[in-house]
């Protein structure tokens, strides 16, 4: 790349970075304040029924509930930036320990789910676009609609019932290898297949109608080369966008899958913390998940410029 391009790319990345920081700050304010909109006295709810006045007051002091909002927020932000994520209000455990391995577990799950969804989604979409308006087209689209219509919960339980209980091919719960990841990944990925398939199909159909495809065929390119080297690569932008958005959805939708498979991830931690009113954990989790989503989308953004050189670093 020429020097000008390099400078432009650097400026582009810097701009993106600051944009991300701004979004993160916004997210942190929202995450921090949302938990205070619940009914009931926060301190009493966290302390639990039958707790003494002193225990309630201790919690009130620890979470600085008597101080004005901006003071609470800046105290919170300051401790996070210095690495102290605080403690769970229920178990008193350091939140960094609570979240650490769970975040990785959810990433594993979401990653496996997305991989499963990308493979089958693009495959089905490709098949549908190549054999447009044929049985294959309608069939694969119907299959993907099935995937998106079935509730995740039901899919998970049905998979468990068939493959774990009846056939005993796969385990119900637990981690430690591909075997434990298969059913949860299918459960979480099934919903996304439909979206990826449809977008792949639509995007491919648009690209396949273009002149340069006809030129490539006329030039003598083999069929696979046309599809993969010429068509798919150009169709990827909407597909990548969808995948990026789906990844965020998966991180969130992991709650149901993690509950059904007792997968120790942040999705379940999130649900549990909501029920138990563990506000400190909720604040950190919301920040973490929203930040993950924001980062993934920035990466998707940056990837456009690699996929389509026409997109300049404006």
């Amino acid at each position, binding site marked *: 790349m020429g020097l000008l391009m390099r400078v432009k790319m650097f400026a582009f990345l810097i701009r993106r970075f600051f944009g991300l920081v701004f979004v993160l700050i916004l997210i942190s304010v929202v995450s921090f304040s949302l938990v205070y909109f619940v*009914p*009931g*006295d926060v301190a*009493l*709810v966290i302390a*639990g*029924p*039958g*707790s*003494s006045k*002193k*225990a309630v007051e201790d919690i009130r002091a620890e979470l600085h509930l008597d101080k004005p909002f901006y003071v609470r927020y800046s105290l919170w932000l300051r401790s996070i930036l210095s690495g102290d994520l605080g403690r769970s209000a*229920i*178990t*008193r*455990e350091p939140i960094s*320990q*609570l979240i650490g391995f769970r975040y990785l577990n959810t990433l594993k799950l979401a990653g496996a789910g997305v991989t499963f969804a990308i493979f089958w989604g693009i495959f089905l979409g490709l098949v549908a676009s190549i054999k447009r308006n044929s049985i294959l087209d309608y069939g694969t689209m119907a299959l993907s609609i099935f995937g998106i219509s079935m509730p995740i919960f039901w899919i998970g*339980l049905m998979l*468990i*019932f068939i493959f*774990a*209980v009846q056939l*005993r091919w796969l*385990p*119900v*719960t*637990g981690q430690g290898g591909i075997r434990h990841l298969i059913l949860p990944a299918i459960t979480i990925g099934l919903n996304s297949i439909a979206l990826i398939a449809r977008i792949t199909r639509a995007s491919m159909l648009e690209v396949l109608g273009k002149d340069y495809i006809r030129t490539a065929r006329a030039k003598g390119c083999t069929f696979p080369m046309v599809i993969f080297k010429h068509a798919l690569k150009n169709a990827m932008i909407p597909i990548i966008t969808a995948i990026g958005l789906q990844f965020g959805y998966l991180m969130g939708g992991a709650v149901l899958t993690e*509950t*059904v*498979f*007792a997968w*120790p991830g942040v999705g*379940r*931690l999130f649900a*549990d913390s909501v*029920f*138990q*009113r563990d506000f400190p954990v909720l604040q950190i989790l919301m920040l973490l998940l929203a930040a993950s989503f924001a980062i993934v989308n920035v990466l998707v953004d940056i990837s456009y410029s690699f996929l389509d050189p026409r997109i300049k670093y404006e």
Partner: protein
Amino acid sequence: MKLWKFLFVLILFPGVLMLDDPSAALAQSKPRQGGVLRFALGVPITHLTMGKSEASDAGTIKRAIFETLIERDMQGNYLPSLAKSWNVSPNGLTWTFKLQEGVTFHDGHELSAEDVKASYGRMLDPKYELPLSRVLKVISSVDIVDKYTVRINTGKPTADMLPRLSWSHAAIMSKLAIDKWGADIDWHPVGTGPYRFEGHVPGESVTLVRYEKYWRRDQKGPYLDKIVFSTIREDATRVAMVQAGEADVVVNLPTADVARLSRDPNVNVRSDPSSRVAHIGINCQKAPFNDVRVRQALNYAVDKKSLIAGVLRGVGKPSNSFISPIVWGYHGVDQYEYDPAKAKRLLSEAGYSKGFTATLATPQGRYFADKETAVAVQDMLSQVGLDVKVSVIDWATYIKKLTTPLDSNDTELYLLGWEVGTGDIGYINDLVFTSAAWPPNGWNTMFYKNKAVDDLIARTSNIMDNKKRYEAVSELQRLVVNDAPWIFLFVYQMTAASSKKVHGLEFLPTEVYTIENVWVEK
């Protein structure tokens, strides 16, 4: 062709290759040493210490780790445990216990009177503010007489002293641990029980391992090498696990699955009476509920049998007292047969022939079929002309609402389930039915006040003679049932499913399973 058929069958039915092991039948009669027991619980374990509220599942774990001075058997007799003998002074104020000698804690030191004094001292220490300590508040002081003799003094003669001391929270903790950890002792349980705490993953699992030096190891357990308690929130997943052989014991079965699991040849399903009574509490100070005729009408209007058959699918028994039949002191009062006509009559006598509106508050997911029960009761009350609205409230807010002091409490009807931790009626008398227990000082969330009941409760707690005490508490139950501060619904049944390979699992009325005699086949 024969070969192909054989292979075909083999591929489709791999089970064909599993021939019966003839030694299996022999093995069942003798407990096998070793193995791992896997429990699947529905709630996370938040602590393993005494004095704090917990889900009943945590009680099962603590029972394997800790022991009490005395223990109660299924027939209600009190047997020696850490105390080998005891006596009470003629005036009923001093209980002297002689401890077993040579009992060691998991941290190695020998059990002595110091540990007993430290354990009860901690429960009653105001600086720890343990919510359940009120059950042991009958203890005024603990004296160390010598290494193996301890004296427990009570302010007044306490009729249910033994039940209170056999209560799971009256277990003896290690003095060394209490001194070392103070308020942070939640996850450092050091007891004398057959299994010791090895570790936990917060919110996910708790692991116990065999305690080699358990003082009773010659008489019974521990047989298992390890016990793992995993938290699996989703009911259906727990059921799938026990069917797939991934869990050995699963508790709190969804009613819909009980019948199906009973048909599974690999699984044993058991159903045991709990000490928990489901009821609708009535705010006795709020019109129209301050009229006893109205409260009685509500009781006549509920068809308990259909409620149990329809909502609980048969898993439960109708309640005719405020305690369950397995609690000491139980005296059934069959006053409220389903009679909607009588209900309507009582209502119009009280001046409500046109009925009235009311709100029934209920949690969802805290008790078995809680919301469903509330909705069923709503329907039954509508049959006698009452317009009842069901309000589902999340548990944390619910508790706050119920325990708000009277002047700002707008609760009318609420669903709740009381279990009796000590197995003796004294526990719930003090906690719920005396007028001194109106919130915020206790759990009399019905704001019920009856001087005759107050007097009777005060009297019965000091009657040491079992027969006389039983007469008095029977009278108490007649009074309270007639006064109807509750709509008495049903007694819960605890359900559990275990793999056929598990032997020796027992259930206590405090909704706790005993593991000390459990062994698993290979």
